[in-house]
């Protein structure tokens, strides 16, 4: 299946803004994070098709995954 991965803020540093990925059926968000070298606890919020989900969430063909790091300063 094919999904779209969007990275935000500091996650773009040394990576990309948006890319398409080919994944085997049954993949979850963790399978996206691993090759990007992003640990699950570095993700503040993950949206799949605009809904916030956890890292175990299973993906479907055509999904758009948006990943955000924690931005906490004041």
């Amino acid at each position, binding site marked *: 299946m094919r999904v779209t991965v969007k990275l935000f*803020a*500091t996650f773009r540093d040394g990576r990309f803004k948006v890319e398409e990925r080919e994944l085997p059926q049954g993949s979850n968000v963790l399978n996206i994070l691993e090759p990007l070298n992003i640990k699950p606890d570095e993700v*503040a919020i993950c949206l799949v098709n605009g809904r916030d989900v956890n890292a175990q969430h299973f993906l479907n063909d055509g999904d758009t995954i*948006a990943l955000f*790091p*924690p*931005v906490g*300063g004041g």
Partner: protein
Amino acid sequence: MLEGRYVRNQETLTDQDQNKLLASSVAIVGCGGLGGYIAEELARIGVRRLVLIDGDRLEVSNLNRQIMATEESIGLWKVEAARDRLQKVNSEVKVDIIKEWFEEERGTDFFNEVDLVFDALDSLATRVVLERVCHQLKLPLVFASIAGWYGQIGVSLPGDFSVLRLYGHGERGVESKWGNPAFTPAVLASLSVAEGVKLLIGSIPALRRAWLQVDLLTMEFERFELPSIEP
């Protein structure tokens, strides 16, 4: 009252809106980069009372971005330096200062007779606590956060869990590595005040159950939804 002080608010704000602001009481939790600019803008636009909460003193590394920090004010309590400056800007605003860190059990005291709260904190965990306290006290909350070129801002009304969903994971944000330059707090504070003013005058805020993701590197402002969930 100084004649003509609010003349340039007109048209954007009706007389009725201005009067609502001039009757309003606002708490700002955190008086650093974001909180300083938020306080400055609220004092200028004209609110009745500001409650500034911060348990920290000014240090040299604050000078790059905190509007209340000057070379003369290093070492002062942040809220004291803020009050001094705000009184020079608008002596008609009552500025109450609290030289303490925000804590859950102090919420009722801190937010006595407050209409709106701004989250200008720098701790993810305390942000979540602040949202909970605001909801318990039925207070609207405008939250904003910054790190490097990036920021987030939104509105959480009682029953929303926007802050919990955005900041409920992890101990420390990426600002610990990327720092905070001068422009990011100024932008995010202004966006916060624009939403806060709407809440104070009874207009509908744009960023309820949502947040605006601000990227000053690419100059992209993107809105994301946080639709209500069953608790």
